[in-house]
């Protein structure tokens, strides 16, 4: 690929700039949907942007006894990890940066914000942050395994570890969700838990721990961390759309090429927003579970369901080859 195009791809579209804009838009859609379900009007469309700018301009307090460079670095790391992960997820056709095994890298990069959130809770020297951080780590061990297993299904079926490859395979065959519905549901639940949204917002449970690991964050750090989570929402939704719903591919051939790309982009938007819709409705229709209840649920049902799904995929693969 032409290096000029690559720079454009990484920084403008569908890289950083688009990601930022889409993340803010997603947050708006999420909040607005929630408000409508709750019988309210909800925020205006520029609200996430206003919040971001305001937080960036606010005083930045570093609590006593906290290592300032570490505190400063963590939100930036989280932001960078998610922004990088997004580059490998196909938005308009395949990603030019795709390489064998990029699915593993994306999953790893998406785990980073949670670990960093735990770290920032741990170093904040506040009881609420520490407990929140410990809860983040506990929750991480509960949802990561089923989430990874669920995302393993499409890769096994397609026989490739590149996300773009899985998308291609789906274009040739059919959407993964058709024969892996369990995996799809587990992946959605895992994403909800990863993003710490109700009913899995245990780490930042407002009524118990003020704001969990977020308690001591101010100004820029808070802004970046919020943005990282919004971007993780986009990346996670895009990832699930790519792995289960055929990503930006469209089932029929369009001419000319730019029209196909445009249609692919449209299908990307529709699919991610549909996933967001499901996540938002779940968020609004439920209360928060306790961490021990999540532990029960995660290991008893979620992990078993994911394993069953993987076994089914393996069996089907074997049957097809035989």
């Amino acid at each position, binding site marked *: 690929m032409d290096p000029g195009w690559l720079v454009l791809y990484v920084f403008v579209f569908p890289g950083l700039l688009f990601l930022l804009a889409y993340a803010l838009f997603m947050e708006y859609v999420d909040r607005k949907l929630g408000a409508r379900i709750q*019988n309210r009007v909800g925020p205006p469309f520029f609200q996430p942007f206003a919040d971001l700018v305001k937080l960036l301009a606010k005083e930045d307090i570093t609590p006593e006894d906290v290592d300032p460079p570490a505190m400063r670095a963590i939100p930036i790391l989280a932001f960078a990890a998610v922004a990088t992960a997004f580059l490998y997820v196909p938005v308009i056709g395949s990603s030019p940066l795709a390489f064998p095994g990029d699915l593993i890298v994306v999953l790893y990069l998406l785990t980073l914000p949670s670990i960093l959130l735990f770290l920032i809770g741990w170093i904040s020297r506040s009881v609420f942050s520490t407990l929140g951080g410990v809860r983040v780590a506990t929750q991480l061990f509960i949802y990561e395994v089923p989430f990874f297993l669920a995302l393993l299904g499409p890769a096994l079926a397609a026989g490739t570890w590149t996300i773009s490859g899985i998308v291609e395979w789906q274009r040739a065959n059919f959407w993964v969700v058709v024969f892996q519905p369990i995996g799809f549901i587990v992946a959605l639940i895992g994403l909800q838990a990863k993003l710490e949204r109700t009913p899995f*917002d*245990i780490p930042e449970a407002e009524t118990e721990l*003020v704001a969990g690991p977020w308690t001591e964050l101010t100004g820029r750090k808070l802004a970046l961390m919020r943005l990282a989570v919004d971007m993780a929402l986009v990346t996670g939704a895009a990832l699930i759309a790519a792995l289960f719903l055929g990503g930006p591919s469209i089932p029929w051939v369009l001419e000319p090429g730019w029209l196909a790309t445009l249609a692919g982009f449209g299908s990307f938007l529709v699919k991610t927003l549909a996933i967001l819709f499901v996540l938002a409705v779940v968020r609004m229709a439920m*209360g928060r579970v*306790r961490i021990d209840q999540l532990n029960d649920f995660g290991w008893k049902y979620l992990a078993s369901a994911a394993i069953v799904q993987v076994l089914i995929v393996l069996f089907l693969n074997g049957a097809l080859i035989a």
Partner: protein
Amino acid sequence: MPEVVVPIGPYHPALKEPVNFKVIADGEIIVRLELDLAYNHRGIEKAAEARDFVRVVPLLERVCGICSHSHTTAFCKGIEEAMGVTVPPRGQLIRVIVAELERMHSHLLWLGVAGHEIGFNTLFMWTWRDREVVQDMLEELTGNRVNYGMNAVGGVRRDIEPPLVARCLKRLSPLEERIRKYADMVRHEPTTLARFQGVGRLTKEQALAFGTVGPTARASSVDYDIRRDDPYIGYADIPFDVVTDGQGDVFGRTLVRIGELLQSVRIVRYALENLPPGPVRVNTPRGAPKAEVLSRYEAPRGELAHFIRTNNTDKVERLDIRTPTLANWTSVAVSLVGSNLADIPVVVAAIDPCLSCTSRITIVDPGRRQTSVMSWDELRAHGIDFYRRKEGV
């Protein structure tokens, strides 16, 4: 992980009111609990001794903004008893209407807050939306949304006109329908069930021993309701049922409150339809003869007691207020030990604490205040010993 002290409050988002628990948690399990509650102490009892009856009523209204009518009614009926004055039936029924509307707004408020405590914000928003209907009725009846200013010694200060009665009656039916919907929602929503059932359980014996009152006691099948057991302001003639439940946990308390909401709708409807004609207020003497009255009242949170001593002047010699929240605190502190950190808000909220009532005077520490850290076995032993001592009485 070592034991952590989690300070909950006095500024804490779960409880918009100031209270402080030092929760000593081992990981997620509560090991010990230290309560410190009097952040709202303002000294109202002292002030009540220095002001005359007319000025005490607005003061008592501001003991607590949620149960403002409860405090004034308890006080007024105590003073009326000391003076030997009878309030005309119309005035009494208007008091009942306001009291039951207040119970409705308080219970709806509680239901929303309980939803908020478990992160179920949609329930919170929906109940508070319907609470606005009650608030509208209260505003039309009394002229104010929160501190009604309705009571005076000798009766009520505003009469209800027939068009207003019709308007209120029209609002009741949709409200009742909504309440039934919430009852259904709470019974079937899985996360609510998971968070409410089996949490903060009190047996009937414990509920009696710790002196709980109101919905907290009634959820542990203690059949105790001042409205029926010691009828006041016309409750003797009004048909209603005392709602009890045998589960004793937060879920039981929720069901009791929802049941009481429906009963309140019934009472308000009955009272509106059967308003007798006549005056709403009688003139009272300026002072009260020497007397001693224990005025009990079933506030939304339970039995409220005003102990009033008068001494031939227009001021009380002593006004001693025992609020329902104060009576319920001991049970909370006991039932929280050993439970999960995440359960604190919901268990505390389950008694519907009204801290500005409570801290107007006092408080509490049921456990011994050791500074040493107890091991889990020691704690168990302590718990067993504690219950044995309490229940042996």
